[in-house]
Structure formats: structure tokens, C-alpha cells
């Protein structure tokens, strides 16, 4: 599907600040229950890269605000 995107979150870089969640217009990110090695609950992407039903548009807003450059954004 065109114009759709997905993101990858590096769990070990993430500090669970939730800013990405706040700005995502599609609600595609949430805080995970697990703890990473630094003791944070990282953000997790709620959609599947391969899924056709992704709401994520690849708008990059999450990545733009991520203070820890934990998010990579892809189109396609």
C-alpha cells in the first residue's frame, strides 16, 4: 500500500518518555510493560511492519520529537 509507513523503535535507546506517544496522530505507539536494561519501560510500536492494516502514515512526528533518536521511520 502506498503512502503508508512504519517505524522501528530501538528499545535499548528508548527511555520511555512517552513524547512519541503524545504526538502520534494514529495512536500507534504505547509504553511497553517490560523494562529495558537501563530500567525504563520503553515505547513499543503497536502495529506490524508487514500488516496491511497499519494506521501509521510514516509521518515521522514521533521520530522528530524523540529525544533519544530511538525511532527510525520507513515508507513503503
Amino acid at each position, binding site marked *: 500500500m502506498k503512502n503508508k509507513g512504519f517505524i522501528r523503535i530501538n528499545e535499548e535507546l528508548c527511555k520511555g518518555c512517552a513524547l512519541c506517544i503524545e504526538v502520534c496522530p494514529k495512536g500507534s505507539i504505547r509504553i511497553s510493560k517490560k*523494562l529495558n*536494561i*537501563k*530500567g525504563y519501560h520503553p515505547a513499543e510500536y503497536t502495529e506490524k511492519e508487514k500488516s496491511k492494516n497499519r494506521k501509521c502514515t510514516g509521518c515521522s512526528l514521533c521520530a522528530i520529537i524523540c529525544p533519544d533518536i530511538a525511532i527510525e521511520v520507513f515508507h513503503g
Partner: protein
Amino acid sequence: MTITKTIFSGFGGQGVLVMGYVLATSGMHDDKHVTFLPSYGAEVRGGTANCTVTVSDEPIASPVASFPDFAVLMNTPSLVKFEEGIKAGGIVFLNSDLVELKPKRRDIQVVSIPINSIAERVGNVRSANMVMIGAFIQKTGLVSLKSVIRSVKSIFETKGSKVHKMNTLAIEQGSAFVK
């Protein structure tokens, strides 16, 4: 044993410094010599917080513990960092809810306690450190329970009696777990 050193370590936010402070204050109430030394890495953010408490019958030379008698470790990185230094025959107190690794050394005693679970049962994860203190005191007998209760009460003085009750309960539960 006239001089005992304990390290408390965990994430910031786990109340690690409060545990140390409670132990040191309790030692003081028991008329022991005590020192409390926080790690003060404030100029650099992140990482683990830790502190060292010394309780002694004699004046204390160094408040630093290269080889602590006891280590209270609230998360995995703390175990990685401090396991090696613990005195042979010493005791490690682990928060088994969060520490995923197992100590490798065989010459130390390991006390594993599901601190977070107990705390949640008591009513609040934030009293995890009180649970741990209860277990620690029970196991080590380093200071009197009476002094601990007194210390905790005065520290949380402004927080009201509800908090005090919960803290007391948490200490008791921790204590009970290792009894």
C-alpha cells in the same frame, strides 16, 4: 563484628537512598557510630543510584566500602556492578522481581525477595524499599526494629499516619518473608 558496611543500589526512583538513610538513622538511634555516603553523580544524569552505610561500635575511619558485608541490590545493573566486591561470607539481598541474573559467586549468601510483589500486596509499589528494609533488618539484626520504625516515622513525618501505617506494614511483611 564491630564494623559493618552495606551497599544499597538500584535505579533512581527505587528509594535506594531512603533505605540507606533509614539504616543509618536507626544505627544512630541505637547509639552506634554510623556514616551514610551517597554516590553523588549529580553532574551526570542517569545510571544507578547507590549509597554506602557503615554501622560500627567504634569510630569509623572510611565511610567507603570496597568490600561490603551486605549488598542490597534492587535491579540487574546493580548486581553486575557490585557482586564482585562483596566480602566473602557476605549477604546479598536481591529484589527478585527485577533482578534477572543470578549471582555467580558461591562464597556469598543470597537472599532473594519478590520485593515489588510484596509491596503491591501491601498496597503500593512505592513502599518496595520499606519491604526490603524489613527483610534486611530481620536477616542481619544490624539495628533494632524499634529504631527502624522510629526512623521511618520521622522521615515521613509530614506524610501523615496513613503512609506511616503502610510503611510499618511493608517493613513487617518484608521481615516476615525472611523470618
